[in-house]
């Protein structure tokens, strides 16, 4: 059941009504049953079994770590719990890779992996590992109530695609008594609707162009490939940010504040800044649990220490997305961008001073342009179906405009282009000019807000594409 499906529009109000009319001490049961029901709707019973297994392992190991004083025993339970969670994750995520290797080595023709889906597994296993590490580091206390802990991992708004919540942020909220708050309900519904707009009106329309180019890259050259790449860069943002808004909006209706995952990432002025704004809950996870320990362990390597830690961290980040060379190179590119910035940053400042542009407003725009292009360049490897396709895209960027007018721009109609340009302009203005965003929000908060609610819903119903149900990050 996807957030933009008809089933979810029935599921959500039903769950809310049951939740609302249930006594506080049983509300966690309602949410837990709803979350398991939500997960079961993906028609893959093994997913529920995996969720229960990870819940049981992390709950038990968490209690063991907290109960022991001896550092060696605590560390042993941390390793047991983390290793078990990572093994489950690796089996699910890399099954296609293992299967293709086995087929090649032993001459088999197994197709098991094509029938297996792993939606949500990486998100709740990452949460489970962060819970164990935080108990080990004595940042958090272990949770004794199995039901609350199970809900912390399974809470349905963030189950399939995150945000990856820390125990300290989410667990206390799940235990709080619920009081109906009209403003929270209204802002939750509005946020959910914004997310739906980003997904079905903007992201899925951008996908028409990105998919057309990237599913047949050899039909295009030059500007067509550049437009396809920019379309994908915007599509993946609107798709994932749309999902996150819908997740956070749903959470808010139940009195739960989930972590914000995006903060205008394409207005970043450096790649480091981009990672502070993009998939924030995930970047916090990899920085806290991979980068920082490596950086500290390699602190005597001079400048090479942080650089190596960044490259390894983002290599892991790439592999987390899947066992393909495209994801590996995408992660490696981001690692290299960040590692090289640790060396050139002082020289960059000196260069800006020497050129006299350090206080120029154009410098920020230039940095945003460069960062967006660096990130878009990396998306080529992320999106391409093979390394050969990726190489073709980057080697044909400056070779003519084959397929641009007839195949690409006009194929989806003029209205599509105009609608997308209007939406993207609006989002860009809202990201760079806070007063535009405030004025826009005031439409939904003012006296005639109901008029704008109806217009907004009508706009989504008329302009939305409801056939394409999947969210991109659902498969990670």
């Amino acid at each position: 059941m996807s957030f933009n499906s008809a089933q979810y529009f029935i599921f959500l109000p039903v769950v809310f009504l049951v939740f609302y009319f249930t006594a506080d001490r049983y509300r966690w049961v309602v949410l837990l049953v709803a979350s398991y029901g939500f997960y079961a709707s993906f028609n893959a019973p093994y997913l529920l079994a995996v969720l229960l297994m990870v819940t049981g392992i992390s709950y038990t190991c968490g209690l063991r770590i907290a109960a022991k004083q001896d550092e060696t025993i605590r560390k042993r339970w941390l390793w047991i719990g983390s290793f078990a969670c990572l093994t489950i994750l690796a089996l699910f995520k890399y099954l296609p890779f293992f299967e293709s290797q086995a087929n090649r080595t032993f001459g088999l023709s197994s197709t098991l992996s094509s029938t297996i889906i792993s939606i949500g597994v990486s998100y709740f296993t990452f949460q489970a590992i962060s819970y164990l590490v935080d108990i080990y580091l004595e940042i958090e206390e272990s949770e004794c109530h199995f039901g609350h802990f199970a809900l912390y991992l399974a809470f349905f708004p963030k189950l399939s695609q995150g945000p990856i919540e820390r125990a300290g942020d989410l667990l206390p909220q799940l235990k709080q008594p619920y009081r109906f708050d009209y403003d929270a309900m209204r802002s939750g519904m509005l946020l959910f609707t914004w997310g739906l707009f980003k997904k079905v009106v903007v992201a899925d329309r951008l996908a028409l162009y990105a998919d057309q180019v990237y599913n047949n890259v050899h039909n295009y050259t030059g500007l067509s490939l550049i437009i396809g790449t920019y379309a994908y860069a915007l599509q993946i943002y609107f798709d994932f940010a749309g999902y996150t808004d819908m997740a956070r909006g749903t959470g808010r209706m139940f009195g739960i504040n989930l972590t914000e995952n995006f903060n205008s990432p394409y207005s970043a002025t450096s790649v480091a800044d981009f990672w502070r704004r993009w998939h924030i809950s995930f970047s916090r996870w990899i920085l806290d649990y991979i980068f920082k320990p490596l950086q500290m362990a390699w602190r005597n390597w001079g400048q090479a220490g942080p650089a190596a830690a960044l490259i390894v961290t983002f290599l892991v980040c790439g592999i987390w997305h899947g066992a393909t060379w495209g994801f590996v190179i995408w992660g490696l590119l981001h690692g290299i961008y960040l590692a090289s910035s640790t060396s050139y940053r002082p020289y960059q400042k000196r260069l800006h001073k020497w050129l006299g542009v350090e206080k120029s407003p154009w410098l920020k725009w230039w940095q945003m342009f460069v960062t967006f292009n660096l990130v878009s360049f990396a998306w080529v490897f992320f999106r391409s179906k093979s390394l050969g396709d990726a190489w073709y895209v980057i080697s044909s960027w400056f070779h003519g405009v084959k397929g641009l007018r007839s195949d690409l721009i006009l194929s989806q109609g003029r209205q599509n282009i105009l609608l997308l340009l209007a939406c993207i302009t609006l989002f860009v203005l809202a990201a760079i000019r806070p007063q535009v965003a405030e004025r826009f929000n005031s439409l939904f908060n003012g006296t005639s807000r109901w008029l704008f609610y109806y217009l907004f819903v009508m706009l989504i119903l008329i302009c939305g594409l409801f056939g394409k149900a999947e969210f991109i990050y659902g498969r990670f």
Partner: protein
Amino acid sequence: MVSEKLKSVILGELELDDFDIVDSTTADMVPGWDSLRHVRVILAVEQVYGIRFQTIELIRIKNVGDLQALIDRKTT
């Protein structure tokens, strides 16, 4: 309580003339104390006090008060 010695090491590495550093001060409260400067601060502390931290000890540090307590433990 944060000693003057630790305070001067931190301010020196962060190239700050002055900043009110207390037990509850965290890196994100101090201008310029990013993850890269943090490594330099830790290396400088190890050098000035003649001690060596374990990685796990460094990861457990939440604020300057924790760092001071760790130094006190290592030097006594």
